[in-house]
């Protein structure tokens, strides 16, 4: 078994750096403080800040005295959780089963040999994928979890051979601290004069166990390239969440979209790692000075395009604008699988499901999601009613018969269509001695040449929305054949549409 371990050092600091939209900000000296105020201690510093003189354990005031341009930030637990979840997604992009611990993810890579020429290339691919997710990781590949964990402390990319002897040979020159010793064991080993892993490995195990107990035996086994820590895979999280906060309230769309785009890019990158797409989006906007606004963005079909999601959010915000500024936002994405389909030899090629899903999402962003779909007949006595349901992304079932013209197949004429006015237009109708004689409305003003009817229809009185109508088909002097009806309760006339 070969196990890879990806370790994101200083994950709290990395979670803060992921939230910085401008890449130039990463080059600035940044420190992570334990709390607000000048007396808070620094928990982590970037390389730039460290080189400038700031170091861990200083207070913010002390660090700023040395590095005036130091930018001090605080990590939110949500950011750290998102970074940890992104690390898990990194593992899921390479293997279906992962095990995560704080700042680390383990996954089996034994069967990835056919995809990469060697384990070095595999490790580089893992690092490249982590960079896409906004994380900097160290990667180690070993025959067990414990050895892989040790490897991540030894360097950026460490490959430990599968056999215990070879692994021991590779580890023996490393300092003893790579074994992540506890304070007591470390002091004891220092007292013994043990400085490298090789020194520890050369000691007799029974003697080490006698003096250091079970912990000592464990470290001795690791030093000898042996480890029996089991790999315990965990199920991935159902939803993907990312959030950010700003120091000042945002009141216009442009800066908001700038932040939102960064969040969506990150979440969609994580989705792509798991070969999934976004099936729905929940946006939580933290309002100034308090409160929040929750928005559900529905998608007709799963997509992975941030611009489409951004456009849908923009449409939603235009329809339901906010009263106050936004000081933070959290995006929760519901993942879904885009199903691949088998091509059928006996039917015409249709659009590829993924391409169609993207097109539908783009159309939804353009015209609104409620205006894209498949029409559906509503079970109602009102003949103008219809509904729209989510479109079918997958190909339709194969037709029973090959296409002959309808007229040939059925031996009948083709259906006469009617164009509906939605909603039915108000119209004035002049009644003559023989029925409707003239129409006047926004759509038309014409004399009626022939009026056929009435066709009385009533119903749905049992459901509370009862109606009683008299329908007429009228041939007007403008040449059109209109469908009109009179509401028997209000005596008002409506233009339903025209035959066409």
């Amino acid at each position: 078994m070969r196990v890879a371990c990806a370790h994101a050092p200083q994950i709290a600091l990395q979670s803060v750096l992921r939230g910085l939209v401008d890449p130039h900000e990463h080059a600035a000296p940044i420190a992570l403080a334990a709390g607000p105020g000048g007396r808070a201690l620094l928990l982590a510093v970037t390389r730039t800040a460290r080189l400038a003189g700031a170091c861990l354990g200083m207070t913010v005031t002390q660090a700023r005295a040395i590095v005036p341009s130091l930018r001090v930030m605080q990590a939110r637990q949500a950011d750290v959780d998102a970074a940890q979840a992104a690390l898990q997604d990194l593992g899921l992009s390479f293997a279906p089963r992962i095990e995560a611990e704080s700042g680390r993810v383990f996954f089996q890579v034994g069967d990835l040999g056919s995809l990469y020429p060697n384990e070095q290339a595999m490790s580089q691919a893992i690092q490249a994928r982590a960079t896409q997710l906004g994380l900097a990781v160290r990667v180690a590949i070993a025959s067990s979890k414990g050895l892989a964990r040790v490897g991540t402390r030894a360097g950026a990319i460490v490959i430990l051979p599968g056999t215990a002897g070879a692994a021991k040979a590779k580890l023996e020159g490393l300092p003893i601290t790579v074994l992540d010793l506890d304070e007591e064991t470390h002091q004891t080993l220092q007292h013994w004069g043990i400085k490298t892993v090789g020194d520890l490995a050369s000691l007799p195990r029974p003697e080490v166990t006698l003096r250091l107990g079970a912990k000592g035996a464990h470290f001795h086994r690791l030093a000898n390239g042996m480890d029996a820590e089991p790999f315990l895979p965990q199920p991935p999280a159902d939803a993907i969440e990312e959030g950010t906060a700003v120091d000042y309230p945002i009141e216009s769309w442009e800066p908001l979209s700038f932040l939102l785009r960064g969040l969506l890019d990150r979440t969609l990158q994580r989705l792509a790692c798991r070969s999934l797409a976004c099936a729905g989006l929940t946006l939580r906007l933290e309002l100034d000075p308090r409160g929040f606004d929750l928005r559900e963005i529905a998608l007709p079909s799963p997509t992975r395009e941030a611009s489409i999601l951004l456009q849908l959010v923009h449409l939603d915000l235009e329809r339901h604008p906010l009263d106050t500024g936004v000081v933070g936002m959290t995006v929760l994405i519901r993942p879904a699988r885009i199903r691949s389909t088998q091509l059928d030899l006996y039917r015409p090629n249709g659009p590829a499901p993924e391409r169609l899903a993207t097109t539908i999402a783009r159309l939804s962003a353009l015209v609104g999601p409620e205006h894209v779909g498949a029409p559906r007949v509503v079970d109602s006595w009102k003949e103008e009613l219809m509904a729209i349901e989510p479109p079918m992304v997958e190909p339709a079932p194969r037709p029973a018969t090959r296409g002959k013209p309808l007229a040939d197949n059925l031996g009948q004429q083709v259906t006469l269509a009617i164009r509906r006015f939605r909603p039915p237009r108000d119209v004035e109708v002049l009644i003559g001695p023989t029925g409707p004689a003239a129409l006047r409305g926004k759509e038309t003003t014409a004399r009626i040449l022939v009026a056929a009817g009435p066709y009385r229809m009533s119903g749905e009185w049992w459901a509370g929305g009862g109606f009683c109508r008299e329908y007429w088909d009228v041939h007007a002097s403008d040449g059109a054949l209109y469908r009109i009806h009179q509401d028997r309760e209000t005596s008002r006339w409506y233009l339903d549409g025209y035959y066409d």
Partner: protein
Amino acid sequence: MSVPAFAQLSSFLIPARRLEKKRGHLPTPWPALNELLGGGWPRGELSEVYGPRSSGRTSVLYASLGEVLKTGAAAALVDAESALDARRAEHAGIPLRQLLWVCASQSQTLKSTELLVSAGGFALVALDLGDSASHLPPTALIRLRQIAQRQGTVVLLAAGFPLAGSFSATAVHLQQKNVDFGRPACPRLRPQLGVDDHALAQILAHPPLVTALASSVSLERGRRSAEQAAGCSLVFQEPLRERARDEGT
């Protein structure tokens, strides 16, 4: 260029007519209209059907959609006026679950159509512009035609006036010819004229509404050989009314 060299070169040339044949047509439900169009709506081209209200252009559009969808191919309808009647569309042979229906405003129709055609795989994208559209930007039409040619999709426009002009490969003009009300119309059947109660009850049970519409078709643009007719007639029938009558009687 010498004559033998030209003859040699010409052996490598493919006649345009053969190229067109290779691309094929999407047949309509009417053999007469197919004959008029040279097989149906040309694939990879912009086609147009226009006419005044009640000329049957929407019926042609829905019947063409039904014809395509029943073969298992994909089709979409961009509806600028949300004028679709689902019941009748179903009777026109459109499997509603398979139809992608986009209700777009007039300003969004061309963009929506472009997105659909660009997706590829659609045999027919119908663009129902209704009566309100009066002008389509030529640049958008050129782009749409180019995408349709690349994807091999039929883009069928239905409008009150010819809007695509020379950008369409085929333009069909419809004119209302005859309306059949099936039964005697209102004037002879009103109670004011002395029809007894029993007759009135029968009339109300089987009302004399529209049952059929006939239209004449003329090909305004498109390939037509000398021996082909310049036009034909189409008949559209009202199915719901007929069925109600059958059930009633």
